[in-house]
């Protein structure tokens, strides 16, 4: 389907349609395929809206039935003001008024349809003490501290309950909708269905239903307030707290500011990470290992086949203003691997054949795509062993001297899936990057340069840059 037609369908989702749009839809209505897509899109959009409305409402079947009965009993004298503009014939007045109300009520009834999960959630809000506030949902190789309660999968946890993990991973499902993976050794105390205190160790949290409110993680030094996101918090033995944002945004407040008014919280966005002692100091975390903040199925970590190749990364970026981090993935390069820390883009094979075989399960670094500017940082990669170092360089840009001089073009390409709707190779690939390689005979640091300018006419100031930051990968020799 042509892009213009796709754009019309998009307009139906964020509206309103202009007169021109309507004229275009009228012209395209002879195309049965377009009409079917349009109908499917609008109906599904409406289903999603009704689902959201139902989840927001605290539906009660008795209320609905009573309302329906009273509607059926409705008579003209109950609602003569409604629909006056529309009712033309007095003989229909009584029934018509009821029907006009019915048209409104029908929307209400349908949008508040009861949902068993919603009822359960409601019950847990009303009766937290009786039913608990979170469920111990999964665990992997857990060992408990000697004095600690040993929780089992399916257990309900209440306020003030603690988890004291000596080792392994545990997952908690909060009734507020938050999901948390805790990595031992760790100690955690539940404050409510939307707040915990992390005393030690690592916890990664994702809040699925942000309509249920903020989720807070308190540590000795910092309060982390979720704004609808996925984020990791790590409490170190020296009392410092590391906070890493994988999606969305969080707010940070030093513990010292608790109870004080007027303190402006620090916001941390996707791809940013800081370390703090709680005294209002914020230090950039330059690199985050992929294993450090496992979440969801990543808690079932498979056995590595070899020691890490990439062990560190640094750059010449000033840290204070934008505390972006690099994420290092050991043996992590595969189809749909996340390409950048500040975008949800993915690496994929250009065709159905997939990513070039020599790259599979390579160590790689998710860089930040915001660095796709002329003054992109000078990056230094730390290799633990002799290795082949790969650079994925966007074909829309001129290859810079350092790349042409030190590396060779393999002739293979790798794709970036910017919309990441597709799964697997060759699906919805938006950009092509050439794969360059360099043989590094000794372990140690390797200096990389800045990216080159865009090919062809340069974008006007303020116009979006049509290019991507390069990717970095390595395989042992």
């Amino acid at each position: 389907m042509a892009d213009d037609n796709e754009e019309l369908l998009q307009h139906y989702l964020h509206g309103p349609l202009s007169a021109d749009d309507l004229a275009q839809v009228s012209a395209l209505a002879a195309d049965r395929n377009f009409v079917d897509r349009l109908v499917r899109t609008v109906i599904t959009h409406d289903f999603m809206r009704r689902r959201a409305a139902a989840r927001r409402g605290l539906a009660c079947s008795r209320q609905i039935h009573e309302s329906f009965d009273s509607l059926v009993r409705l008579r003209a004298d109950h609602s003569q003001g409604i629909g006056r503009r529309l009712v033309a014939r007095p003989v229909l007045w009584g029934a018509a008024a009821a029907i006009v109300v019915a048209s409104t009520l029908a929307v209400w009834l349908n949008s508040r349809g009861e949902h068993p999960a919603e009822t359960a959630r409601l019950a847990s809000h009303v009766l937290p003490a009786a039913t608990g506030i979170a469920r111990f949902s999964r665990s992997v190789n857990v060992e408990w501290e000697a004095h600690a309660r040993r929780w089992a999968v399916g257990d309900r946890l209440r306020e003030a309950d603690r988890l004291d993990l000596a080792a392994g991973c545990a997952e908690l499902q909060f009734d507020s909708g938050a999901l948390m993976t805790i990595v031992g050794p760790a100690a955690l105390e539940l404050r409510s269905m939307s707040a915990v205190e992390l005393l030690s160790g690592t916890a990664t949290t994702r809040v699925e239903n942000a309509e249920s409110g903020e989720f807070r993680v308190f540590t000795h030094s910092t309060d982390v307030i979720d704004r609808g996101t996925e984020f990791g918090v790590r409490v170190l033995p020296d009392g410092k707290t590391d906070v890493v944002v994988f999606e969305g945004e969080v707010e940070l407040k030093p513990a010292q500011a608790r109870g004080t008014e007027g303190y402006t919280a620090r916001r941390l966005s996707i791809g940013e990470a800081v370390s703090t002692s709680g005294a209002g100091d914020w230090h950039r975390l330059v690199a985050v290992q992929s294993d450090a903040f496992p979440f969801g199925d990543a808690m079932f970590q498979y056995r590595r086949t070899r020691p890490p190749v990439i062990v560190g990364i640094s750059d010449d970026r000033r840290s204070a203003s934008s505390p972006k981090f690099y994420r290092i993935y050991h043996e992590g390069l595969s189809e749909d691997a996340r390409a950048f820390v500040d975008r949800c883009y993915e690496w994929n094979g250009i065709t159905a054949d997939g990513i070039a075989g020599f790259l599979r399960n390579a160590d790689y670094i998710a860089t930040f795509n915001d660095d796709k500017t002329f003054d992109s940082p000078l990056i230094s990669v730390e290799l633990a062993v002799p290795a082949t170092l790969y650079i994925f360089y966007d074909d829309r840009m001129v290859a810079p001297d350092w790349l042409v001089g030190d590396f060779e073009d393999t002739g293979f390409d790798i794709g970036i899936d910017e919309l990441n709707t597709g799964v697997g190779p060759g699906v919805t690939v938006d950009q092509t990057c050439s794969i360059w390689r360099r043989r590094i005979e000794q372990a140690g640091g390797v200096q990389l340069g800045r990216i080159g300018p865009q090919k062809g006419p340069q974008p006007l100031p303020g116009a979006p840059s049509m290019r991507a930051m390069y990717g970095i990968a390595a395989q042992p020799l």
Partner: protein
Amino acid sequence: MDEASRQKQFLKLYVAAEPSLHQFLQILVHDPHLFDDICQAVALRLWEKFDTFDASRSVPFRSWARGVAAKVVQEWRRSERHAAAFLSPEAIAAIVDGFDRSLLGSRDLGEYLEVLEKCLSALPDHSRRLLEQRYAEELPFEEIARRTGRQLQATYKFLQRLVHQLGECIEARTSDQELLNQGRTNG
């Protein structure tokens, strides 16, 4: 049938058909003020014409109701000064046919919402999260684009693809269920 029973029967059918009718009118009418008025006008017309609806015939109430609604919209299109705010008569007829063909309009809302949950749970986390941000949290597209690090246009495109993908999933699962039920009946 006495008046009270007739009214009750109508309301029962109307409440069940309302989601489909609402979706149908969403495609045809794009002025929010006109939309409310036309929804009410359609409800009134359906009640006026209810005597002509024959429940024993093979046409379901919601299909009959869409036909009536299309006529109401055509009348408004002719009488309103701003005919440009509506689709053309041919397009309206094509949309009526599109709804009749669609697998998403023949069952009760509750059944679709159940299937929708299954389709949502099959999506990758980040896709489901984006849908939640748009529909549950009602975040503006600009905010979603900012949080997910996408361009605004890419966010529109991504959401539209996701919604369409969900629609296809619901159709496929509904159609499988249909076949299963037919198999049970035939068997």
